[in-house]
């Protein structure tokens, strides 16, 4: 199922980049029948301005608009007033305590989406992020709860072991893909189910966990206080932001991961190799890059970042892995990565948006709308984003073709120009 075309809606690079430079040159040497100058907005779209920026921002916005419309329609059908429901969602979502929850949720979504986006960068769909982060969080929580180390080492141990476990679990899928030709989509789905079973097996009072008295919850031993990461509120209030709840202390980690991801993808040879092997394994092979090796490395990196997803919650809030640990973040990550176009900044916006939707959907229960409507919105967003990107790509190509056609029709003689 390796599709050489980039399935992830990355920038449509296959469109010719330098085709339309006509208007600037025609103004230099005006032939007798100069065509009318192209209006500024059109010129911008055709590539004179910051080309494609309008598309990059417009396409997700359009998709979002469509999904809000569909959600409003569903609210209407279920007998609630869409305008006032959305209004109350916004009111509830912007209260201070909600904001803290939103930021915390967004941190998880962000890490999850970056993990997915690393795979997307080379046309690998890592559906297994879900299993990778849960297994990593569970095992590293057990490790952190069993050991007491002085301050920075305990945290480092937990984080590094989570990255290792996530990476190793993802490596299974990568190795199966390159040695046995198993599609990573299917193998990661199976590995998710296997991870669920392994966690159920290990999270048992006979094995790695204890029963919490007074409830039927099972959890790993609590991480000792030396091994925890305190909330970020102290720092935030020192710069003048006072929030009622605890903001994850590992929020900066997510930001660092985003920056590293951005730098590696855009400014290193490794990032370039990765992209090339995803777009065309044969081209990569021809230039001395082993596409197979890149697949395994990418899966390991994706899994390592996936291992980080549970860390802010584990080290900053719950200090244990229990049955209540947040689940299903991997799937949300796929949606967020698609909506954010695999760009670290776009992913951040998308993560905040999804966190907002999740948080504020609680209030919908009051007006008789099931809160699962958020799931519908997420599905619609993914679908419409993909469709809108494709439409925009086709439109862009058509615009370019037309501009080339007008150039040719205006009697542009390239040979003569070159001679002059």
């Amino acid at each position, binding site marked *: 199922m390796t599709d050489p075309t980039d399935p992830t809606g990355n920038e449509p690079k296959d469109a010719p980049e330098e085709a339309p430079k006509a208007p600037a040159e025609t103004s230099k040497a005006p032939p007798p029948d100069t065509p009318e100058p192209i209006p500024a907005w059109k010129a911008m779209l055709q590539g004179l301005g910051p080309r494609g920026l309008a598309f990059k921002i417009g396409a997700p916005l359009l998709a979002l608009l469509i999904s809000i419309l569909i959600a409003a329609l569903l609210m209407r059908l279920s007998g609630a007033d869409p305008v006032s429901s959305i209004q109350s969602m916004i009111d509830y979502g912007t209260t201070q305590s909600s904001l803290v929850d939103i930021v915390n949720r967004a941190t998880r979504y962000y890490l999850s989406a970056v993990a997915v986006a690393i795979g997307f960068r080379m046309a690998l*769909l890592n559906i297994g992020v879900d299993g990778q982060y849960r297994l990593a969080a569970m095992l590293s929580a057990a490790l952190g709860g069993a050991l007491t180390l002085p301050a920075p080492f305990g945290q480092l141990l937990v984080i590094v072991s989570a990255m290792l476990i996530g990476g190793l679990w993802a490596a299974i899928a990568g190795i199966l893909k390159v040695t046995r030709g*198993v599609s990573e989509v299917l193998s990661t789905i199976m590995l998710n*189910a*296997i991870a669920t*079973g392994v966690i159920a097996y290990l999270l048992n009072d006979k094995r790695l966990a204890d029963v919490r008295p007074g409830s039927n919850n099972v959890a790993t031993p609590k991480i000792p206080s030396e091994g925890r990461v305190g909330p970020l509120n102290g720092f935030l209030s020192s710069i003048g932001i006072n929030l009622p709840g605890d903001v994850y202390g590992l929020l900066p980690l997510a930001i660092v991961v985003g920056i590293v991801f951005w730098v590696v993808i855009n400014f290193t040879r490794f990032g370039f190799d990765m992209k090339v092997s995803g777009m065309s394994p044969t081209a990569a092979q021809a230039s001395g890059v082993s596409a197979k090796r890149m697949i395994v490395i990418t899966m390991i990196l994706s899994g390592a970042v996936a291992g980080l997803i549970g860390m802010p919650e584990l080290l900053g809030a719950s200090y244990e892995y229990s049955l209540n640990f947040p689940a299903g973040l991997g799937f949300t990550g796929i949606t967020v990565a698609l909506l954010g176009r695999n760009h670290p900044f776009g992913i951040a916006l998308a993560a905040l948006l999804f966190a907002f939707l999740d948080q504020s959907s609680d209030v919908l229960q009051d007006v008789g709308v*099931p809160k*699962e409507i958020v799931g519908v919105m997420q599905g619609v967003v993914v679908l419409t984003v*993909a469709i809108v990107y*494709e439409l925009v790509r086709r439109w862009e190509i058509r615009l370019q073709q037309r501009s080339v056609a007008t150039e040719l029709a205006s009697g542009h003689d390239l040979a003569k120009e070159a001679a002059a």
Partner: protein
Amino acid sequence: MSTAAVAEKVKSVNGKLNLRWPHYLLIVGGLLILLSLVRVVDDANDVTSSGTVGAMLRLAVPILLAGLGGLWSERSGVINIGLEGMMILGTWTGAWAGYQWGPWVGVLAGIIGGMLGGLLHAVATVTFGVDHIISGVAINILGLGLTQFLAGLIFDTGEAKALGGGPRQSPPIDPIKTLTLPVLSGGKIGSWQSPDWLGSLEKHHWFLVSDLAGIVRGVTAGMSLLTLVAILLIPATYLVLWKTAFGLRIRSCGEDPYAAESLGVPVYRMKYLAVMISGGLAGLAGAFLVTVAAPLYQDGQTGGRGYIGLAAMIFGNWRPVGLAAGSLLFGYTDAMNARGGGDSVHALLLFVTVILIAVAGYQLSRTPKLRSSIQTDLDRRVLRNTYIGVVLGVVAAGGLLVWYLSTDAVPGELVSFFPHVTTLLVLALASQRLRMPAADGLRYRRGEAR
């Protein structure tokens, strides 16, 4: 020399296995004897009991139907990972119609619900050229979200709630009639209760005889009419896809849409039809879950069976009979899980150990022949990989044997992912022999260059 003889010679030179149906029969017979032996040795009578076989059939049908759905879609060149979502849609629409107007209307509604999901997939992938996997993932999210939303909206209010519905489940649905063979398996003729010969034979736990009796009784006792319909869909799919002009057109779209278009096949229309049939089959699988497997809709009922159906289809090399075999295998492992078969799985550990040793032995016996014919680096690599395979097989068999000898039963949590491990192993072992439709998953636009 006739052409057939030449072809035979070419095949033998290639050194590949050339299996025909007698070979398959022999393999199946051998596996059955081995299974029976393992059952007797470990005293795990549930391994081939009629209850297990009946559960296998019941659990294999949704996987089979989802796999057939995948087959239709992928034969036309559209990867359908959205089967799971279409199946979920089928469970909801099937239950919604089923509790009001009876199970068969529910089945019809399930098919329609799945077809709507298929239509969405076709619009996204065929008309708009969206990547097939992304569209499929979106449909899975959408199907889940939409059914949860609608269940909360409709099953939790008014009449439905009074009948026993809730935000996570529907009111119960009347069961579909079941068939039991008289005389052999104890079915009724009129009001006369006929004897259950196979059942009594099974209870003796004799070597092989009781196993055969259990298997036949499992298939012939208490089989739902819908199961029969699902089984008949296997030959139907084969006949339509491989023996009609319509099927040829669909398959040509999956192999080379450009050539198909140049011969006048309406590629878009064919793909639309195939993907909608695919969705309909997935919806039928969902409807089966809410009418036969359980008498109501429950949240999370599909449990990833759509994905396993896809894996069964890949296991079956994009062909109906192989797909049926694959879904039976997954249905069997699922039945072990559903019947809490820690003991049975324990016996199966021994079964797998013996098979691994047999495969390793076969590979080892091939090595002298391979070594004598080494000419290129590629041959050397093949030989090396064979050795690695033998070693890995023996190590795995040793590990399983130690596990088998040191425990009495496999813990239930580990049994729960038995089907998935099987899927992964089967994919890892079989993927390289498979050939998917040549244009599967590729974007096709009319009038554009390749």
